[in-house]
């Protein structure tokens, strides 16, 4: 009997200890907790406090690094202004859920709404409704099907991303017409993926090159690993690979290392901190990445504040913010990576 209870005590103790250990393992705090957000401070013209404004914000739930950085940037930038109150609403899992959340937001009458839609076309009517209610709508990244549904659009350049990657690969492989080029896009059904691939193919054509192996992943590390592992099998020898997304790029790099391949160079996309670190140290085949910066969310908050206060952009002549801003897709290599490091987002 006492043997039994001793065993129980031991078991119970072990279970408790294991439980305590497990519970202690959920922390993600680092000692050097550098803020992983990109904000703009010290721009006198736009930062002088004006009339207090309330800005609503809605973006899809963060399920990967880039979207996570979008929300984090928006919140951090809003916190920089003493005259801005940010009302962030959860966009839910799909377009109908986001529409429902926005209806509530519109009813609370904010001065402006920064909106990254689940789907541009599906959210257009809500954008229009908000504009009709006198709310300034800043359309972030995914474009509405009707320009009247937003006051201002700020977005990245998907086609331009493909062009930038194409030029980088093209310059490096110039004259080598038998070069084998691989491409690992994200989710293939998305328009943004098609735009990126088209930009890449169009630009390569100018150099007499073309994509030989193309395997779609799904923006997740695991899909990136699987796609790259199989792609490397399909192509025993490669000269260059463009991976559309640095989030899935973690898996892509792992697969390349596991296969022990280093005869080609890899170009990334988006511009994560992890990718930039690899470019800087030169420890992998990743030699460049083309940006699609989530810092656009910070800029969108700045635009919303300016518009709601009736100001234009300080350095421009016009009295209003522009109708549309398309960000450049920049190429980050070892030569300029130091300049971009602060803009790298945590994947």
């Amino acid at each position: 009997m006492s043997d039994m209870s001793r065993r129980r005590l031991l078991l119970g103790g072990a279970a408790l200890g294991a439980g305590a250990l497990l519970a202690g393992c959920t922390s993600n705090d680092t000692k050097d907790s550098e803020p992983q957000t990109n904000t703009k401070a010290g721009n006198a013209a736009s930062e002088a406090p004006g009339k207090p404004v309330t800005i609503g914000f809605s973006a899809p739930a963060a399920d990967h690094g880039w979207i996570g950085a979008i929300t984090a940037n928006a919140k951090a930038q809003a916190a920089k202004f003493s005259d801005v109150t940010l009302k962030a609403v959860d966009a839910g899992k799909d377009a109908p859920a986001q529409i429902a959340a926005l209806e509530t937001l519109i009813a609370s009458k904010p001065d402006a709404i920064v909106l990254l839609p689940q789907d541009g076309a599906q959210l257009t009517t809500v954008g229009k409704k908000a504009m009709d209610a006198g709310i300034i709508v800043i359309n972030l990244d995914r474009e509405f099907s009707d320009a009247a549904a937003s006051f201002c659009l700020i977005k990245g350049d998907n086609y331009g991303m493909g062009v930038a990657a194409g030029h980088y690969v093209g310059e490096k492989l110039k004259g080598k017409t038998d070069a084998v080029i691989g491409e690992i896009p994200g989710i293939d059904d998305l328009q943004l993926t098609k735009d990126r691939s088209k930009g890449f193919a169009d630009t390569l054509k100018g150099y007499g090159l073309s994509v030989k192996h193309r395997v779609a992943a799904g923006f997740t590390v695991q899909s990136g690993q699987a796609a790259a592992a199989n792609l490397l099998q399909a192509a025993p020898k490669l000269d260059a690979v463009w991976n559309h997304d640095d989030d899935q790029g973690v898996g892509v790099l792992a697969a390349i290392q596991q296969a022990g391949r280093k005869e080609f160079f890899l170009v990334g996309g988006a511009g994560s901190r992890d990718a930039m670190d690899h470019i800087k140290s030169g420890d992998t085949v990743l030699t460049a990445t083309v940006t699609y910066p989530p810092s656009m969310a910070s800029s969108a908050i700045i635009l919303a504040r300016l518009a709601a206060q009736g100001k234009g952009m300080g350095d421009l002549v016009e009295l209003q913010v522009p109708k549309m801003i398309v960000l450049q897709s920049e190429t980050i290599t070892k030569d300029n990576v130091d300049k971009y490091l602060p803009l790298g987002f945590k994947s």
Partner: protein
Amino acid sequence: MSTTIEPPVDVHDRPRVTAQGFWQREGSDHAKRNLALIGVLLLLLIIGMFTRPDIFLSGSGLWQNEVVVLSQASSIGVITVGMTFVIIAGGIDLSVGAILALASVWCTTVATQSYGPAVMVFAALAVGALAGLVNGVLIAYGRLVAFIATLAMMVSARGLAQNISQSHTQITNDPFIRSLASDKILGVPYIVLIFLVVTALGWVLLNRTTFGRRTVAIGGNPEASRLAGINVRLQTMLLYVLSGLCCGIAAIMVVSQTWSGSNTNGEGYELSAIAAAIIGGTLLTGGRGTIVGSLLGVLIFSQITNLFIVNGLPLDIQRVINGGIIVVAVLVQQFRVGSFPFLKRTAAK
């Protein structure tokens, strides 16, 4: 509907002589099905030889390619072993992908990584087993339907994974964890070896232990099992713990393959594992199934994906083919257990 227990009429209809050919003997049913699956696998390799002779007809090329196929099958394969046990016992586990994600995130947090690889491995296994235990208790003692209990776990485990990781990809630089996917013994990566060992252990557990016999028994007829003295509830609970533990093992494999834990890991694994078990001959209603069949099911799906990619074909068509394979496999399965009485009658003559 269709279980191994035959209606009494059939027993009289069917000649019970044992001196029959291999193909007619009832006991060789599993062997026959597995041979058919091996045939499908060989067919896929032959297609490969015609479409990409440079890979499939060169010794080293074929070896390397099949190592990749096995590596890609390893994490889903381990999960399918656990899933096979659960389904044989008449249950279902929809939460495997989410538990994998949770375990992969839990074992790659900054805090866990600071304790070193041993704790990382322990955390993944413990989180998997604990999540499985919650499933098991809810189903066995809380009398929840397995579909509902594991559906709830599927949603909440992924949510918790998202909460812990804040949707970030948690990268690990631990050399031991990374070496599991990249280092090899005799050309075979460690994770493939783990996969094969787990499969072998699963086979032994199902076929050579009372645990395995009980699993089949409660899947065939839980009431009769209870009357025969089996603790059905305890057995049911343990099966979900087993499935959760397999998710923990698979989580370590995925972390070593991708160098990271992420709440997006293991997406769609529940359906892939169920599909692999089904084409391997496991009855969704319980009472019958084999580990070897499930293993072959996993390999077939992994080989098809590989075949499509090395031939540069779009993956949408592959989904259509995967769906077709499931339908054909189940149709064949129904034919075996006698859902087509008119066919049986002609066969008896």
